[in-house]
C-alpha cells in the first residue's frame, strides 16, 4: 500500500509538474501576488486530494482535468469564505465572486491563451530584481516549474530548510514590495527582461554545470530553462533578440547533454564525445533561434556564447573545429565581460591554435584570481597545460586542490585517475 502510494505520488509529481505550475500561476493572478502562498496551498491540497482518491480508485481518464476542477472549486470557496478577511485586488477575484460572472470567468482564465499570458506575467513576478537571484531561481522552480522543495534542494546541493527559508523570504519581499502581476511596458521592459534572462541562464547553468550528480534532475532544469525562454519568445508583446540568443545557446548545449556523461555518470570531455549522439533536432532549433537573434543589430553576451556553441555543434569533428573563428568570438566576448572564467575558456582555445606554451603564458596572468579557485575546470584545464609542458608535479598539485572542492564521487574518481596518469611521468 505504502509502495503503491509513493508510486502514485511520484507519478503525480512528474506528470503534473507543468499543470502544477500553470495552476499556481492562474491562482496567483486570482488571489494577487501577495497571496502566492495561498495559491501554492490550494494546488498542494488539490494534489493531496488526488493522491488519496487515486490510490483507492486508480488514476482517472483525464487526470489533469480532475485536478484543475478540484483546484478551481477550492479557489472559489476560499474567495467566498474569506471574502471579508482578505483583500483580493484582482479583477478575476471579483469575477469569481459574482453569480453572473463565475462560470464564464472560470472558463476564461483557464483558456490556453490566458494561461500563456499569465505564465509570462508570473515569470516577471518571480524574477523581479527586488528578489535576490537565489530567491528568484528557487521561486521560479517552485511556482512556475512545479518542483518540490526536496528537488530544489537536491539541485542546489543545499538543505531543504535553506530552500524553504529562501522561499519564505521571497514571498514576503513580493508582498512588501507590492509587486504587480504584469509584464512591464515601455522603458521598464528592457531592464526587467534582462533580469529575467539572467535568472533563466542561472537556472540553466545550475542544470548544465552543477556538481550535483543527479543527472535526471539536472536535465530537467535545462529543459525548464528552455521552456521559460520559449514562453517569452512566443509572446507577441516582447521582441527580444537576446532571448532568442539565450534560447539558442541553451538548445545547443542541451543537445550535447547526454553525450557528456557515460553510463557510470562520468563526465566525457568534448574531445572524446560521440558526436552522433548529439540531438540534431535540438541543434536545428537552436540554429533557427540564432538566426532570429541575428535579425536585430545587437550583440549581447548570449549572442556570442550561442555562436561559439553553434561552432562546436556544427563542427564535423573535434579536430576540424574552427578554433580561429571561436577565438575571435572570445575576443569580442572579453570586451563585454572580461571575467576570469571567460579568460580561462579563451586560453583553452589559444592552446589549440598557438600551443600550450603560449596558453600557459596567458594563464599566469589570471591564475591568482580567487574567483577561479572554486572553479573545477580551472584546475583540470590548467593541470593539462602544465602536464603538456612536462611539469607533472605542478599538474598533480593542482588536481590535489581540485579534489578538495565540493564535488561528487564520479568527478573525484576521474581526478584520481588523472593523478595516477600524471604520476607515471614523474
Amino acid at each position, binding site marked *: 500500500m505504502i509502495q503503491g502510494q509513493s508510486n502514485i505520488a511520484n507519478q503525480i509529481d512528474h506528470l503534473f509538474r507543468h499543470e502544477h505550475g500553470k495552476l499556481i500561476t492562474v491562482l496567483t493572478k486570482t488571489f494577487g501576488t501577495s497571496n502566492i502562498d495561498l495559491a501554492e496551498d490550494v494546488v498542494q491540497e488539490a494534489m493531496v486530494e488526488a493522491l488519496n482518491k487515486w490510490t483507492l480508485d486508480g488514476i482517472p481518464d483525464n487526470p489533469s482535468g480532475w485536478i484543475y476542477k478540484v483546484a478551481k472549486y477550492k479557489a472559489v470557496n476560499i474567495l467566498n469564505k474569506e471574502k471579508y478577511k482578505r483583500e483580493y485586488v484582482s479583477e478575476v477575484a471579483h469575477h469569481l465572486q459574482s453569480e*453572473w*460572472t463565475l462560470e464564464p470567468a472560470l472558463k476564461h482564465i483557464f483558456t490556453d491563451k490566458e494561461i500563456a499570458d499569465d505564465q509570462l506575467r508570473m515569470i516577471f513576478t518571480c524574477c523581479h530584481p527586488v528578489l535576490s537571484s537565489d530567491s528568484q531561481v528557487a521561486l521560479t522552480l517552485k511556482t512556475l516549474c512545479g518542483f518540490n522543495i526536496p528537488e530544489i534542494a537536491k539541485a542546489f546541493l543545499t538543505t531543504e530548510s535553506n530552500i524553504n527559508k529562501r522561499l519564505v523570504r521571497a514571498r514576503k519581499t513580493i508582498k512588501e514590495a507590492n509587486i504587480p502581476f504584469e509584464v512591464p511596458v515601455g522603458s521598464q521592459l528592457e531592464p526587467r527582461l534582462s533580469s529575467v534572462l539572467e535568472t533563466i541562464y542561472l537556472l540553466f547553468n545550475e542544470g548544465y554545470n552543477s556538481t550535483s550528480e543527479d543527472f535526471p534532475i539536472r536535465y530537467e532544469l535545462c529543459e525548464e530553462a528552455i521552456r521559460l525562454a520559449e514562453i517569452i519568445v512566443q509572446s507577441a508583446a516582447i521582441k527580444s533578440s537576446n532571448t532568442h540568443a539565450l534560447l539558442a545557446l541553451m538548445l545547443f548545449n542541451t543537445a550535447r547533454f547526454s553525450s557528456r556523461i557515460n553510463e557510470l555518470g562520468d563526465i566525457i570531455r568534448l574531445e572524446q564525445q560521440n558526436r552522433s549522439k548529439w540531438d540534431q533536432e535540438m541543434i536545428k532549433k537552436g540554429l533557427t533561434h540564432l538566426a532570429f537573434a541575428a535579425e536585430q543589430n545587437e550583440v549581447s553576451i548570449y549572442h556570442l556564447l550561442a555562436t561559439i556553441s553553434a561552432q562546436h555543434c556544427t563542427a564535423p569533428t573535434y579536430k576540424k573545429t574552427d578554433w580561429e573563428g571561436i577565438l575571435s568570438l572570445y575576443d569580442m566576448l572579453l570586451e563585454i565581460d572580461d571575467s576570469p572564467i571567460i579568460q580561462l575558456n579563451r586560453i583553452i582555445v589559444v592552446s589549440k591554435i598557438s600551443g600550450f606554451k603560449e596558453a600557459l603564458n596567458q594563464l599566469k596572468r589570471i591564475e591568482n584570481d580567487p574567483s577561479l579557485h572554486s572553479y573545477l575546470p580551472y584546475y583540470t584545464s590548467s593541470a593539462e597545460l602544465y602536464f603538456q609542458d612536462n611539469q607533472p608535479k605542478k599538474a598533480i598539485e593542482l588536481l590535489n586542490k581540485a579534489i578538495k572542492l565540493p564535488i561528487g564521487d564520479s568527478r573525484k574518481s576521474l581526478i584520481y585517475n588523472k593523478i595516477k596518469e600524471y604520476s607515471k611521468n614523474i
Partner: protein
Amino acid sequence: MQEFMIFIKTKGDHLEGLSEEQQQAHVQKIGKYIGGLMESGKLKGAQPLDMDGAIIHGNKGVFKDGPFNESKEVIVGYFHIVAENLLEATAIAKANPMFEDAEGNIEVRPIKQMEGIN
C-alpha cells in the same frame, strides 16, 4: 475608453414563467455573452442583485422608509464595462440575450470622469 454602468431593471423575477430547461438555456446564453465581454477585456464586473431590499426616502436629514415593491420595476443587476463611447456601450447593452426571454429596461450611464485635481 470610458467606463459605463449598465443597470438591468425588470418587473419581478424575470425568469418566472420559464420552464427549468428554458431557465438553463437562458443562463447558458448569458454565460456566453459575459464570457465574450471578458475575452474582449470590456467587462470590469457584473453582479445580480437579490430581489429584496429597501427603499429609503431622505429629505434634509429626515429619512422615511419607502415602500419596496418588487412587482414594480427594480434593478436586478448591473454590468460595469469599458467602451469607446455611449454608442458602443448601448450596443453592448442591447447584445445582452437576457431580454430575448424577458421584458425590462436597461439604463446605460457613463461613469463621470474626474477632470483632475487643480
